[in-house]
């Protein structure tokens, strides 16, 4: 639950204006440099003590988790602590390091385009409480998020 809330916090940081250079995208190398610029605008950021406090009730709503007011307070403090702890990473000077897209070295691991029927589809369907012979029944939805 805590990690899920943390994820929610981290990914829903306050909005920021992104300066997009009118790069010409004429080669992937230029585009990578563009990504570098983008990434740097995140990483070489404000110092941790100026980080915004988490808006816990909004976070809880986006994660569809209901919290009581006292839980919100409690969570807020704990989340704050975790962020500040991670915030220490901001102090590392990475201006001379090329940003990596991902952590691991190996790419690949692709699948052949050969269809296979999953054997136990019936048990998948059976495990859905609102499954109604052919379709899943769901509550009426008025609006996308």
């Amino acid at each position, binding site marked *: 639950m805590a990690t899920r809330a943390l994820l929610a916090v*981290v990914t829903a940081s306050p909005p920021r204006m992104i300066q*997009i250079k*009118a790069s010409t995208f004429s080669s992937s190398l230029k585009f990578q440099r563009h990504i570098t610029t983008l990434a740097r605008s995140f990483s070489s950021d404000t110092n941790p003590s100026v980080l915004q406090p988490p808006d816990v009730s909004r976070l809880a709503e986006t994660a569809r988790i209901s919290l009581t007011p006292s839980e919100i307070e409690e969570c807020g403090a704990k989340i704050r602590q975790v962020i500040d702890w991670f915030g220490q990473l901001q102090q590392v000077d990475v201006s001379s390091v090329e940003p990596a897209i991902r952590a691991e070295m190996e790419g690949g691991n692709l699948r052949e385009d050969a269809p296979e*029927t999953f054997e136990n589809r019936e048990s998948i369907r059976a495990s859905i409480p609102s499954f109604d012979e052919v*379709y899943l*029944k*769901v509550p009426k*939805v008025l609006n996308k998020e």
Partner: protein
Amino acid sequence: MSTTLFRTIQPNHFTLLTTALLRTRTKTSRHISVRCQTSTTTQQPRTSAPKNHGSNKLDEILKDYEAVIGIETHVQLSTSTKAFCSCPNSYGSHPNTSICPVCMGLPGALPVLSSKVVDFGVRLGLALNCSLSLKSKFDRKQYFYPDLPKGYQISQFDVPIASGGYVDVDIPLEFGGGHRRFGITRVHMEEDAGKLLHSDAGDYSQAMIVDLNRAGVPLLEIVSEPDMRSGVEAAEYGSEMQRIVRYLGVSNGNMQEGSLRCDVNISIRPIGQAEFGTKVEIKNLNAFSAMSRAIDYEITRQALLYNQGQADKIVTETRLWDEGAQKTVTMRKKEGLADYRYFPEPDLPEVILTQEYVDSIRASLPELPEAKRRRYEAMGLGIQDVLFLANDVSVAEYFDEVIGKGADVKSAANWLMSDIAAYLKNEELSISDVKLTPHELAELIAAIKDETISGKIGKQILFELLAKGGTVQGMIKEKDLITDPVEIEKVIMKVISESPKQLEQYRSGKTKLQGFFAGQVMKMSKGKANPALLNKILLEKLNAKE
């Protein structure tokens, strides 16, 4: 669960480049206007407002306002399996039968990318003249909706597989003609959601129903630069996207089936104003003609509000096109932008392309519509013919085969565009079903050209071959055409003897009457006389006596 510390950009990917615009309507975005200028200078200089469906009201509006239109296209790929699992990807299967733990988002399941999806992505990126990212990644786009099993869609947010391309189109003659180039911002890979439908069970339980066969089907999303300026241009862009994906064989590009979906983003601004107006999104477009009409309607609606001093009533929203009422209607408005909380998909590795791989795909690309159009034009065909022949890849292939056998280009084009096209339409067939082979069409054209048969007979033979197949030579034999000079001479002499008056007139100078005699001979022989021989012998006889 990995916790990736990554400050993500809040707005969704489409607004990445236009963040500034949406936040504050009045803020000038110098970056974007520079970009637009660059793209418009490569287009034909416009001397007048773009032509529309002949609506005077619209033309009036376009004297004062400029429409700025961008299109997002989702293409469902015709792969055999879904994007991240091996479930079959086939349209029309019984609901909820093409499912497995991966596409159902069950705990513990892991996605594995299909190599075909990467192949198609590279193919389309190259066809749209994009730069490819040799390294790209997937991200999670998170939101809750009943047709989205995992609670997130696997997509590509900030490092798409292809970006910075363009497409060249020809505007149809009836709308002014001319060439246009429209920029392509990016192409990226993602998965489709399931289908959410209304239950017609008749119970008033306020329920809806979901079919997850489509969840996980691979999509390529194409985002255009906001370079279109009218409904006509937008419709042509859409048609070209359809042509290209069909030419490449990456999708069947069917708007009705949902394998090609276009969403339009449109704003207007007074001519001369550098800042963009407020952008409105239009969804639920099922045909290119609907796209064009929806855009025209929206331009009119927005201009009216501007004229009434109520420009602030234009808000950033999504509107639906109501085909019945022929207008756009507002969906329920929501406050603020969607917060998708993008972060890199931890369950998928980087997508890595080698230069050799890209080069091999580039080498295997077919001739694309634009190249075909230019080649056909260079062969001397008129633009109307060019647009027809290059529109359907099967028709173009058929045409190429026919002229490949040496047939006259203009004749081949004419036959295909008139009689053959009419036949296909009547019988509701496609060119691949027709029994007339390209070889035989070439034969037919040659036979008419060297006057072995008349044009009229040619047409008859064409219809028989279309319906039943067979060969031209066979038909000629069957029709019992008269190729014996002696026989023809007999008929000629008879005709001449029966028309003494015309013979007089001919002999005294009215040489045009040769046509009359030829016609009579044809009539008498029931069209079976060989035209070349006929004319040769006729001329001899007419000029001989006396």
